[in-house]
């Protein structure tokens, strides 16, 4: 039941379009029954945030995302997989990350997308710095214990 997919992995400053990326993944396919597209966006933190600045480790970011995709492909029968992670300054309302998982059945697509997001949070070398509207120098966002717990739940 293991389907070999070549995940599309991109780390870029440019924005992405969920519609175009979904279309790309499905192009000419008639065997896909379910697509789950997760988009992570920059929140304004109650109006206080001016922008998030995303630093990344070029090369390792792509490599680590590819490793996470490989684990997901081994675990669920996927027909397609795309992950795009942005870096640089992103304003509230802007896109940060896109994960698209396609499968014959919906449960695999939901679980794979959720799994990839959990591991992106805890394994992919990206760091967020907050720039506030009041001009104060940005603080680096702390890693969340809840994210570690989210990735640990897949170990059972």
């Amino acid at each position, binding site marked *: 039941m293991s389907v070999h997919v070549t995940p599309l992995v991109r780390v870029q400053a440019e924005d992405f379009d969920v519609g175009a990326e979904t279309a790309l993944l499905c192009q000419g396919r008639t065997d896909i029954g379910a697509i789950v597209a997760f988009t992570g966006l920059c929140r304004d933190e109650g109006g206080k945030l001016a922008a998030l600045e995303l630093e990344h480790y070029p090369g390792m970011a792509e490599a*680590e995302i590819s490793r996470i995709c490989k684990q997901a492909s081994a675990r669920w029968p996927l027909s397609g997989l795309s992950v795009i992670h942005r870096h640089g300054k992103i304003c509230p309302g802007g896109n940060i990350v896109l994960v698209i998982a396609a499968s014959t059945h919906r449960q695999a697509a939901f679980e794979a997308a959720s799994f990839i997001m959990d591991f992106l*949070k805890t394994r992919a070398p990206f*760091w967020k710095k907050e720039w506030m509207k009041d001009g104060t120098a940005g603080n*680096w966002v*702390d890693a*969340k214990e809840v994210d570690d717990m989210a990735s640990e739940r897949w170990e059972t």
Partner: protein
Amino acid sequence: MRLVYFSWVREKIGKGEEDVELPDDIETVRDLLSWMKTRGEEYEAALEHQDVIRVALDMEHVLHSEKLGTPHEIAFFPPMTGG
């Protein structure tokens, strides 16, 4: 050996990368971290909470207990906050 730093580790050390000759007696990643902290107060400050510092050898996460080996590039950074 190429060393690279990210996020507040980079800011505290004051540079993003450097080439460094490592002493011969470093066996593990933990040994490396201990030696790094002796290189000056900016390194001491950056790596103070040694347990939270993540290390990657040639772009792969490793535990502090791992043997260092002979990587081309060693990266030091705080826990990731992407996604």
